[in-house]
């Protein structure tokens, strides 16, 4: 299924996204699996309630039994009965740097995932397909971290203050200037935590009487920030510009709900790359819409900064647009820069306003200096200011790895979601039984993957999410792809109806018969 180019001149290169639907029997069997799981869930709850089985769950005390029940809703039922059975695939502790390969602490369970114990051994050199290490800056190479070590010895690790009191160091000023130069905007402000950047700054920008138009699949930090602000929130369908335009027209024509006054501000919240789908936002159409209806645009580039674009400057560069078109550029340093924290960039007026009015600036501790130095060195490497072309090589390597990985997976016949250029690759698993089996068997083959099910995804569309990194070599990707091929055949995961032959190399030689 390919998306055609609707406005011919708006997109400079083809925008291909896949959201293939599996055959109908897959949905039926998924529901069957959940049905059996639910029936056994009720059976186990019955046994626990009548004392036939030991209770390991959270339950109310005897004195509270007559009050409103706390644990009867579906979410708790699901957690007790379905999530507990496959819980060993999440929260696995690692004990090395999350580079392209890492070490896992081995843990076993004696009572079906209610408790875990560590055996003391570590599983070495597990290929890491789950960390957001897009450019490979999560490294322990001493030469690379020289400046970070110097700053650590100069400043220490603690700041012990907020930005507005005594927490603004010269490192922060240097970093902010560098971020502004990197993105091509007037000014930027950095914060200590990426999640808090969204949730603490959106309330500073919008308030009561404003309208927030947010994408269906926005991250929790954006949703939390929107709810904390007190503005009216309306949701448009994922990446669907017609739905957004309808909402914008209704907002302008009808105004606020009861008083029919004009909205004080209309702001559109979108992300650069959506981490569960791997889809890229339709930025050219969005900017046209925003200019036509005079709304503001807040772009969260958490996963796309450093990962897409010819020189790693995010979706703005990917579409060949100017950063002046976007009102608020937000991003995080956690994913591509191997550090922690977030930034908001844009016009100088905006950033000066945030310096005085953001909750994060007033109350949250600022970023610590070694982390700031890590971002500075990563950004200098990306921009080429350290005198090497290593940054550009990393971006190109990531692009190559992404295209290779996605192409091979499509050829094998798996259903993959998302844009062809996004390094986040969700592979659809659908059935709840396969989630556990997939993750466990991949770990047996020494590959660490992240699987996601309900409630992070819709109930029928559970998936395994791969994050391709520039630090992965071709051999590592081939190991993973061969393991996926084998596992796909064993678990019957190759549902795609559009795949080419699964072994194209057998058919490439000319037949001289």
């Amino acid at each position: 299924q390919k998306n055609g180019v609707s406005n011919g001149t708006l997109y400079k290169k083809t925008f291909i996204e896949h959201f293939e639907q599996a055959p109908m029997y897959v949905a039926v069997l998924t529901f069957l699996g959940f049905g059996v799981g639910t029936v056994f869930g009720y059976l186990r709850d019955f046994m626990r309630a009548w004392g036939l089985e030991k209770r390991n769950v959270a339950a109310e005390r005897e004195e509270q039994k007559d009050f409103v029940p706390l644990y009867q809703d579906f979410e708790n039922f699901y957690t007790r009965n379905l999530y507990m059975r496959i819980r060993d695939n999440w929260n696995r502790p690692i004990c090395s740097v999350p580079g392209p390969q890492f070490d896992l602490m081995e843990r076993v369970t004696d009572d079906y995932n209610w408790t875990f114990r560590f055996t003391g051994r570590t599983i070495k050199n597990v290929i890491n397909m789950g960390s957001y290490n897009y450019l490979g800056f999560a490294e322990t190479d001493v030469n690379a971290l020289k400046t970070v070590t110097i700053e650590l010895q100069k400043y220490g690790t603690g700041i012990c203050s907020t930005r507005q009191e005594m927490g603004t160091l010269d490192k922060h000023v240097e970093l902010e200037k560098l971020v502004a130069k990197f993105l091509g905007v007037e000014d930027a402000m950095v914060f200590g935590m990426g999640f808090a950047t969204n949730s603490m700054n959106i309330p500073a920008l919008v308030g009561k009487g404003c309208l927030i138009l947010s994408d269906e699949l926005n991250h929790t930090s954006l949703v939390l920030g929107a709810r904390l602000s007190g503005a009216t929130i309306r949701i448009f369908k994922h990446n669907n510009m017609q739905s957004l335009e309808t909402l914008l027209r209704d907002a302008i024509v009808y105004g606020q709900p009861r008083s029919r006054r004009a909205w004080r501000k209309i702001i559109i919240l979108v992300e650069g790359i959506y981490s569960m789908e791997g889809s890229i936002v339709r930025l050219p159409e969005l900017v046209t819409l925003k200019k036509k209806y005079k709304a503001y645009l807040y772009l969260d580039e958490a996963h796309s900064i450093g990962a897409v674009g010819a020189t790693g400057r995010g979706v703005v560069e990917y579409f060949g647009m100017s950063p002046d078109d976007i009102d608020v550029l937000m991003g995080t340093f956690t994913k591509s820069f191997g550090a922690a924290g977030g930034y908001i960039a844009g016009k100088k007026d905006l950033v000066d306003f945030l310096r005085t009015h953001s909750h994060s600036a007033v109350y949250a501790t600022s970023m610590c200096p070694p982390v700031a130095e890590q971002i500075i060195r990563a950004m200098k490497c990306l921009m080429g200011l350290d005198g090497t072309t290593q940054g550009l090589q990393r971006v190109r390597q990531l692009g190559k790895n992404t295209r290779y990985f996605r192409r091979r997976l499509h050829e094998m016949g798996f259903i993959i979601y998302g844009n062809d250029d996004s390094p986040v690759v969700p592979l659809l698993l659908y059935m709840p039984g396969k989630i556990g089996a997939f993750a466990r068997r991949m770990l047996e083959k020494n590959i660490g993957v992240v699987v996601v099910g309900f409630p992070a995804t819709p109930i029928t569309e559970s998936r395994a999410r791969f994050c391709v990194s520039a630090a992965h070599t071709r051999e590592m990707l081939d190991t993973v792809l061969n393991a996926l091929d084998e596992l796909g055949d064993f678990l019957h995961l190759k549902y795609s109806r559009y795949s080419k032959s699964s072994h194209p190399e057998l058919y490439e030689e000319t037949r001289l018969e």
Partner: protein
Amino acid sequence: MDIKSTKNYLYWLYCQFELITCSYLMEPWEKLLFYTFNITMLATVLYATYTFVPGHVSMAFQLLLRFFGNQHENTVSIVK
């Protein structure tokens, strides 16, 4: 050789059944319960098929003949 690949195929089919019905995730006693229930239901359905379906099919056939041709009634006799 054929026996081995058939056995592998049957094992693979069993694994698929386990994965689809979530019995891969169940504890052993739950699996026992689930399989007992399934096998009992399957046995009941098969027994019912064996006992009743031939009778039903012949009765349906008879009904069909009555609608479609009175002239054949004398020449064709159905053994019950």
